[in-house]
């Protein structure tokens, strides 16, 4: 399973700190892979269970995300915006962010 998370917006939107995250679970440890794939299945994103936001934000300084999941040849992309109220989706985004390479 391959995943990509792009992030934009927010009060402190510094490109160097919000680079896209790309992961291939085949390259992760068994535990990390199981964690991420488990979160993906919890969200239901592969079954169309995550709806994209559309139109401009009602608020301001809200982060937006583009999340792409590729699994078995099928590619699913959704657009998200904070505050993410679905716990499983929020957990997946947080998990992917933890894999972002930060500048040193």
């Amino acid at each position, binding site marked *: 399973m391959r995943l990509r998370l792009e992030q934009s917006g*927010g*009060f402190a939107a510094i490109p160097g*700190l919000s680079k896209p995250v790309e992961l291939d679970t085949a390259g992760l440890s068994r535990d990390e892979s199981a964690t991420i794939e488990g979160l993906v299945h919890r969200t239901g994103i592969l079954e169309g269970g995550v709806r994209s936001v559309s139109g401009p934000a*009602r608020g*301001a*300084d809200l982060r937006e995300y583009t999340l792409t999941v590729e699994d078995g040849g099928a590619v699913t992309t959704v657009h998200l915006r*904070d*505050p993410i*109220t679905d716990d499983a989706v929020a957990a997946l985004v947080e998990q992917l962010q933890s894999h972002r390479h*930060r500048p040193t």
Partner: protein
Amino acid sequence: MTVRGTPTGCVLGIVPPHLLEALARNGTGDARDSAERALEHSRRLAAQRRATRGRPRGTYSMMATTPPQDREIYDAHNGNDLPGDLVRAEGAPAVADAAVNEVYDGFGWTWLLYWEVFGRNSFDNDGSALIGSVHYQRKLDNAAWDGTQMYFGDGDGEYFKRFTLAVDVIGHELTHGVTSTESNLTYQGQSGALNESLSDVFGSLVKQRGLGQDAA
């Protein structure tokens, strides 16, 4: 001297009451009648002001009393649910959590700027509560206005400290509430840039006024 005619035809404005009383007493014809109507109008206004004293007002008046602030600070406990648990309501004493007190005080500074300088009662000029949640998500590098309330992240601790530390950030976010209830500048493209710019300017004004700084 200028006077202003009301729809009822009486004369009032900057004519001092002692002149109106003298006209009512010693004037003749139209001048006396007009002075009497102006005095009666002033008495009615004074009675209305006494009756409404202490209430929030929707529009600014030099004679309006200061309406009460209404601040509600919540703790999201590093989760995704908003607003979280109420930890400090209006008038409650400071708590041990600095982030809570910073938002409470920052809301106060912002509210005072809008009231004392612009006669605006809260972000919507209708006295609505200022609601803020601290400790939103884990190590979040952000502060935002979600359309009804503000939330503040703790920062990652490496590049950003908690977003409640800077009062201009709080003023910035609250000003998004002002903008949303006035022009509702669409948050994208040029209108979004104007929306952001207004928040930047007023965020700085909140900080400078709170610190007693002037433009000189």
